[in-house]
């Protein structure tokens, strides 16, 4: 669990101007904070995830420093939007991707399986999107690290530095929920 307010503070420290994406249960608390004002970080909710990469690319062209926040299912939806805008335009862009199905994959398989086939992707005891997330990022050459808890927040700094160095997207895979409220923070 990561406190959503701490996460937002980290975005503010790194000069993020806009969060572009779609909410899911893991990111809902941050979307709520952003919708309530966001302390100068603007919320840009999109209608589909591929749109997030194009809109974020436009924000960057216009002088902003956007961050994309989507679920891993949306990453799979984003293919050509990611390729044809942020990647092709060499835009330094940090993407936080909530990792649906990660816990069950770890419990059941102990990690990302080295190969996939129809039988594995069809197993009812696994969420197939988890099996495809890291291999998809690897196939596209998008560097990625996990955010497993609040102690990993410094990885945001490294992700911003890496995206600037590479001139391209870098992904952070969020395996826990962003939470609101005293107990979380």
């Amino acid at each position, binding site marked *: 669990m990561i406190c959503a307010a701490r996460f937002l503070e980290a975005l503010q420290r790194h000069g993020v101007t*806009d969060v572009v994406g779609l909410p899911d249960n893991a990111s809902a608390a941050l979307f709520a904070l952003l919708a309530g004002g966001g302390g100068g970080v603007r919320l840009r909710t*999109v*209608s589909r995830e591929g749109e997030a990469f*194009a809109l974020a690319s436009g*924000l960057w062209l*216009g002088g902003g420093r956007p961050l994309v926040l989507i679920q891993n299912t949306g990453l799979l939806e984003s293919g050509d939007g990611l390729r*044809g805008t942020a990647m092709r*335009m060499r835009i330094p862009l940090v993407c936080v991707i909530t990792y649906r199905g990660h816990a069950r994959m770890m419990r059941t398989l102990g990690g990302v399986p080295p190969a996939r086939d129809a039988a594995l992707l069809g197993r009812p005891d696994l969420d197939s999107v988890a099996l495809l997330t890291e291999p998809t990022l690897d196939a596209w050459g998008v560097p990625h690290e996990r955010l497993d808890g609040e102690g990993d927040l410094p990885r945001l700094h490294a992700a911003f530095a890496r995206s600037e160095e590479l001139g391209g997207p870098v992904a952070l895979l969020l395996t826990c929920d962003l939470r609101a409220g005293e107990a979380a923070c």
Partner: protein
Amino acid sequence: MLTKDEVLAPLAALRTDQVVVTTMGMVRPWGRHSTHPLDFASADSAMGHAADLALGIALAQPARTVVCLNGDGSMLMSLGTLAVAVEQRARNLVLFVVRNDTYEITGNQPVPGARCVDFALLARGAGFPSVHGFDDAADYRRRLPEVLAAAGPTFVVVRTEPGHEAPLSRGPQEAAAYLGDSLAEAAHRLRRALAALRAS
């Protein structure tokens, strides 16, 4: 029905400091009307993503009008952007749909809903406060200044004759100046140009 030149010449004549984003069948024709540093060709990129790219520029540059010359096939790929533009109150976005009912670059195959989809109604339904439709060149020329001056987001659909544009590329083989460099170089150039204008 208008020709592309009848759509673009009046727009180029009125254009001052707006960003103009083009895509697909409008890229080369606009390049024959303009060599402005704030022109950007969404070519060698991702089909269907010119409107949301332009929306992002508009949101980052609220004091500057951003015009997007989109096609009908491209617009059909990203209808959700209509809702997002309204939700984000992009008053400075002018989104054209240059409607020829075909996928021109690939040989003018009909788009889904050719001659049937009402783009103006879709834009109104999404909440666009300023929606305009044209199929007559004189009417378009006469009303374009008020269209560009309206509080947006503004949506403009223009019935246009299909052309015969070949697939797009980027590099010195292309006559249009803004296709002379790579998509990445063009993107970074536009960001620098907008930053310089903001600083001045």
